[in-house]
Each structure stands twice: as C-alpha cells, then as structure tokens.
C-alpha cells in the first residue's frame, strides 16, 4: 500500500492509495462516513484500460477543525476493529 497525498488543506485531503481496489476502498469509505467529524468522503477509481489515473484517490472533507489525516487514521482503526469483531462473532458461531 503506497500513499501519496495529491491535495491537502486544513479540512480537505486527497490521497492516492496505491494497490487497492473497491474491496478495501469501499469498506474504508463506509467507515469514514460513520465518523462524526467527516462531512464528506469518497473515492474515485478508473478502469485499468482507461490509461490515466487507475489507482484509487480518496477524498476526505472534515468539519470542526479535525485534521483529515487523523480522521483517516481513526477510520483505519475502525475497520480493524470491525474485522476483529466480525472474526470473533464468526468463530463464536462456528
């Protein structure tokens, strides 16, 4: 996973997340949208054959003076907690 910030300001961040596809990006976007201080989160991905930017670019907009990078980190933690909780619930049922 290679990160490259393409645009950045106090409340907005665009970051390229190399090597990922919808599988992870959509989960991450979902986690970001659950975050209280995130007002908008989206990602853009182009098909392989388009010849342009094919790596996903994640854009986050925050409110209340929260650093978007912190929000991203918290979302990553949130995804990790979700996977742990899911595994535990699955193993408990299995």
């Amino acid at each position, binding site marked *: *996973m290679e*990160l490259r910030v393409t645009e950045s300001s106090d409340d907005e961040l665009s970051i390229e*997340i190399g090597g*990922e*596809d*919808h*599988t*992870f990006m*959509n*989960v*991450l*976007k*979902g*986690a970001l949208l*659950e975050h209280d201080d995130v007002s908008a989160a989206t990602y853009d991905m182009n098909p392989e054959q388009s010849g342009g930017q094919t790596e996903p670019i994640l854009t986050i907009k925050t409110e209340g003076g929260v650093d978007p*990078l912190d929000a*991203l*980190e918290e979302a*990553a*933690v*949130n*995804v*990790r*907690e*979700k*996977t*742990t*909780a*899911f*595994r*535990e*619930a*699955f*193993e*408990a*049922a*299995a």
Partner: protein
Amino acid sequence: MTEEYDVEFVEREDRKARFLVRGVTPAFANGIRRAMIADVPTMAIDTVRFVENSSVMFDEQLALRLGLVPLTTPPEGEFTEDDTVTLSIDVEGPATAYSGDLVSSDDLVQPADENVPIIELKDDQRLEAEADAVLNRGKDHAKHQGGVAVGYRHLQRVEVGDDVPEFEEQERRIVRGVIEEDGELVPTSEFDHDLTNRYPGKEVRVEDVPNAFVFHVETDGSFTVDELVTRAVDSIEARAIELEEAVQL
C-alpha cells in the same frame, strides 16, 4: 466505537454454508464478499513441463485444464507466494486421466477432488508431465479463486396480515433466501420459495431487515468455508493495519 455483530448458521457443510450476520453495514458485507472471491490466495498449477503428450490436445490446452483443478491450500503461514509444489501425472491410454492421478510432492497440497477429468486417452496415447503449483489470488487468475458462488441477500421479515378476500384468486409470492418469522430463521426452500404455500389465504408483507445479511458461501474445495471467511476477514484487517501504520508516519 465497538461493533456488535451476531453470526448464526442456517446451513453448514464443509464446502457450502449459509449464515446470517446481523449489524453489518452493506459496505463491510460487500468488502468481505469481494475479499472471499478475489483476495484469498489458493494453490493452483501454473507451470507444466510435458515429458510426453501424445493425446489429442495441445500442451497449452492441457496446461490450462491442469491449472483449473482445485488443489487443497495449506494452512496460513505454511507457504509464501513464491513457494512451489510439484505434482506429476503419468497416464497411459486407453484410459481417462483424472485429477486423482496427480501425484503431489507435498501432503498439504492435493487435488481437492479425485474425479475431475483432464483428458481421455485412446490406444497408444500417453500423458506424462510435471507441474508446479503456486499460491496466488483470484484477482490474478480465476483458477486461484477459492470462493465460488459467494454472495449475500438481505434477511427478509415476513408479516402476516389479514385474510385474502374470499373470492379472489391468490397470486404466487416468490421470495428467495432466508426469512425471519418471530426471530426464527426459515430458508425459503422449505416452502418452495412461495409464501402462499406457507401462509395460504393470508396477505403477507415482506421487508428487508436492515443490516442483516445472509451470506451464501461455497468453496472449490481448497479449504473449508470457515477457513475462507476468516482468511477474507484477515486480508481486510491486514490492509487496515497497513493503512493505519502508513498514516502514522
């Protein structure tokens, strides 16, 4: 933020299962589904060296067929992406070469099924080859896809209402998946997927239960359903941890 998930099995076999997950967001459910299909590595034959092939098929046709034979995948951590396992096959006609004729050099990597036909050999035809199996993901080639027929549906809640007007002909009401009836899970196959069989002469209302998904998972025999699901979750977790660490720098 602590997540509360609840998993309940509806159907359970080694290679095929149906289970309900409550409290899961659509985004997360889809992430797991996609990870099961494309991101869980399995073993499959990738390179074949032919010693003799006097069959009616070209070497590369047979190589493709050998590649598509599902192989059992060793436990996590036993193999890395660069390791190879050699399998050999030697069949002389008249006979049919089956996946069961493959002889593996590693007990952990064996054909998952013995009865996949590779080619029918006539008199004086012979197939002798050596093949290398590698670990890779479904994203790179469908032969590495451990999960086949992986999907999910909303759990559906059925509410029984009034009687249907006496002289009205009742229309069929088809639902597929699993329904919830007073907290009890009923696969729709039990009543031929037709709600009028279960509730004759009654009005019924069907609605999706929010954030409750019934997963249907089938594997190609590379590993059990449990293994596939946990490995898919692991792969998402690994990426979340990687991102977390990358952002902290």
